């Protein structure tokens, strides 16, 4: 028992260190979703309403992306405790990240202690997978910033854990229903993944479920959450989001993509040319888009891309989602991952382990019909399955070499420790040194500095104009000025999530402007991107990204 407490304590300490050290400073600044979450939590704390004035919403309109509510609500007590800051916005994610590390131990133990061939080592596998998730670049990336999906990973794991435990202790089965229900409010992708995982568990364990009373109660609890979720599901906002992100809608495609309607038309003309007009109507028809082969291929390609080597091990997806020059998993994990998967599929499959490959297969499903794939955030729900497989692979190889000669065993250990240390050290270097330097633009650096300056000198001016080229500027100014939500809501609160020119408070107006034609009789302060201003503008201050390129300019208008 002491040994267990010591080992799990060490792993949790490591997890905490990696998640809390320089939290709020690396990455260098908050990106727009983080400030939006922070200000909404602050607003809920002060007024019980979000920035739009909606009382305790179950969906936060936020930046017009209609965020699930859990992250906002768990940020409220943290903001109450530590005040509105970078640290307090990121802390919930970090804390649940640490909790995920602990939970990984228990989930792994629960599953692998049911596999006869590795039961004797299940504790070892559990410690290892917990350790691997503690140092996982993927998990660290989203534990050190306010990403809703990180909360979702924890809740999903809890739901699965209690489901399996609940097969023996039925009361825990009901806890599983609660967490599966809660999951519907944690993250967009989870709204597809969680019910599918739940259904898979029911199918897998259909012979081992608790008595009917508990099953009914399970669906009653989950049903309450689901009924509350239905209005969100059928709301116009959800429809807008789905239309804007899915690949079946030609109107929402990126401009660089070919026009689907035109492709269909060209193909139909080709069919008609050779006398197959009817075939053309079947094979190339916008109304039959869900059976269109090219679109389906695109969806499959996006699905498979989540298992791609480059995505997982070399470069992830967009820069915001990984350390520069680093993938989502460690390269040293690859051989162990392959061995772990191979072993499990060939020798270790049973009711308990079957959920692991199914989990892997379910997670990319919702992402594969969206435009941006592979997507490290939306697929973070993969975790901690990769680490479980890797830990299994490590233990299998360890057992193999343990029975070889002593020198071989020691060499193996030295090589593994060296590979891990080098790989991890390189990751830490890339994360702590290069993230801030290379990605300060992606992490929206400069907004805080601009707010501090405008706050200092705003009283010298009639008003302060902030260009919409600064990207969702109203929320950065609200956050960093800690503008009182009461006062803000009295004036109407936020009117647009950032894409329209309606937002304003105090002396600040958030809209596009023209430097030359802006009321020359009044003294105005302007904040904008470098290309908002001409060469001869009266620049008060230029803020630079950490790589030396210009971020923002603060300028005084030209007066008569």
């Amino acid at each position, binding site marked *: 028992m002491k040994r267990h407490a010591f080992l799990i304590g060490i792993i949790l300490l490591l997890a905490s260190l990696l998640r809390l050290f320089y939290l709020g400073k690396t990455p260098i600044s908050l990106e727009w979703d983080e400030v939006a979450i922070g200000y909404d939590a602050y607003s809920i704390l002060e007024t019980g309403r979000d920035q739009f004035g909606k009382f305790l919403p179950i969906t936060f309109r936020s930046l017009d992306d209609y965020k699930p509510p859990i992250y906002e609500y768990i940020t409220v007590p943290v903001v109450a405790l530590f005040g509105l800051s970078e640290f307090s916005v990121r802390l919930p994610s970090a804390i649940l990240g640490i909790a995920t590390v602990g939970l990984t131990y228990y989930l792994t133990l629960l599953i692998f202690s049911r596999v006869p061939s590795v039961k004797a080592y299940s504790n070892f596998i559990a410690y290892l997978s917990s350790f691997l998730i503690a140092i996982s670049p993927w998990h660290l990336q989203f534990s050190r910033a306010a990403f809703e999906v990180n909360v979702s990973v924890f809740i999903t794991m809890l739901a699965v854990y209690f489901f399996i435990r609940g097969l023996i202790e039925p009361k825990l089965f009901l806890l599983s229903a609660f967490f599966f229900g809660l999951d519907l409010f944690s993250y967009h992708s989870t709204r597809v993944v969680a019910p599918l995982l739940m259904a898979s568990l029911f199918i897998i364990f259909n012979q081992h479920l608790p008595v009917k009373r508990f099953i009914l109660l399970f669906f009653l609890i989950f049903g309450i959450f689901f009924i509350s979720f239905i209005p969100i599901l059928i709301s116009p906002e959800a429809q807008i989001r789905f239309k804007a992100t899915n690949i079946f809608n030609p109107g929402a495609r990126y401009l660089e993509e070919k026009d689907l309607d035109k492709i269909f038309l060209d193909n139909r003309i080709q*069919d008609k040319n*050779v006398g*197959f007009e009817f075939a053309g109507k079947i*094979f190339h028809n916008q109304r039959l888009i869900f059976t269109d082969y090219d679109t389906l291929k695109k969806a499959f390609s996006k699905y498979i*891309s989540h298992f791609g*080597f480059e995505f997982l091990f070399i470069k992830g997806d967009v820069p915001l989602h990984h350390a520069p020059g680093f993938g989502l998993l460690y390269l040293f994990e690859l051989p162990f991952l392959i061995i772990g998967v*191979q072993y499990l599929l060939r020798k270790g499959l049973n009711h308990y382990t079957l959920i692991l490959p199914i989990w892997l297969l379910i997670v990319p499903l919702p992402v594969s019909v969206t435009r941006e794939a592979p997507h490290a955030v939306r697929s973070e729900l993969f975790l901690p399955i990769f680490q479980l497989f890797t830990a299994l692979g490590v233990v299998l190889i360890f057992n193999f070499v343990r029975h070889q000669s002593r020198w071989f065993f020691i060499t193996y250990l030295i090589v593994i420790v060296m590979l891990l240390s080098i790989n991890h050290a390189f990751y830490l270097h890339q994360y702590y040194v290069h993230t801030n330097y290379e990605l300060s633009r992606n992490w929206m650096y400069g907004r805080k500095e601009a707010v501090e300056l405008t706050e200092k000198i705003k009283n010298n001016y009639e008003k302060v104009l902030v260009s919409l080229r600064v990207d969702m500027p109203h929320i950065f100014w609200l956050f960093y000025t800690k503008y009182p939500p009461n006062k803000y809501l009295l004036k109407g609160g936020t009117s647009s999530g950032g894409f329209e020119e309606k937002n304003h408070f105090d002396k600040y107006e958030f809209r596009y402007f023209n430097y030359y034609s802006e009321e020359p009789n009044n003294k105005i302060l302007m904040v904008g991107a470098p290309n908002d201003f001409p060469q001869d503008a009266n620049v008060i201050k230029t803020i630079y990204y950490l790589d030396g390129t210009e971020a923002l300019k603060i300028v005084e208008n030209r007066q008569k």
Partner: protein
Amino acid sequence: MRKTNLLFVVLLYSFILRFWRLGQIPPLIDQSLFLARLTNAFLSLMSVFLLYYYSKVLFKNVRLALLSAYIFAIAPWVLEQGRIYSQANVALFILLAFLTVTIKLKSLYLKLFLSSIFYFLFSISYPQFWLFKMSQFELSLNNVLNNIFIILSPEFFFFKNPTFWWGGVRDFGILYLAWLPFLLVGLNDVFVIKKPRILLWIGIVLLISVASPFFPESREFFIITPFISLIVASGIYKFFSRNDLLTRVLFFLVFVFMIYEIIQYFHYYTIHYPQQILGNRGHINEPF
């Protein structure tokens, strides 16, 4: 149905797929090449038979051999190369003939003798093979590694085939997507039944292809198709031999999807592909 009859059905099916409107699909740019195309289609048909025989001896399983031959016969890339004048297709026939002849041979000397004949025939039938074409080349480890990941990517296997610039069916991968689960199961099976020679051949062809200075226009990789067909067939066989309901349902769903994909491929190949070729005649600068 008796197994010999099944073999006849597979061959008849292959024959129709290869000879139906051979002069029109894809359009014959140079009429004098029709005879070459006819010969090529015949060799492709023979390759189907040779693969049947080879896998029968290798696996000692007639059903699996029939399945391998069938998979090979309908694979998108094999069909495409079997209906044009393709040196890679001729070389593949020679390789399969060599493998079939030598699989039962015990004498090392005879094997070496046949290998030299194989090398000779291979070199005269496939002068475009980049190792024969290049007098010197530089091998960059970086490029090779990069190319390996490209060539082993799902994109290349299932969605796009850039090995043949103009004239090739680039909008389809080298396999149908529906074969993916069978490929994975088959790959696992190949490890279990320990048939290293399949993996050895795949490894050799893979290395030659990725080292090509013309990569990704590396049609040498076409030679891998019979071995991939063996693996896919092995996967299907494994799948089909399981008797539980879940596997059967899964198999049925994948099978329906495969039919859908084959229909899509034929639609594209017979209607759109010829028009694409006619619209891009100016780009085609090799016998086709």
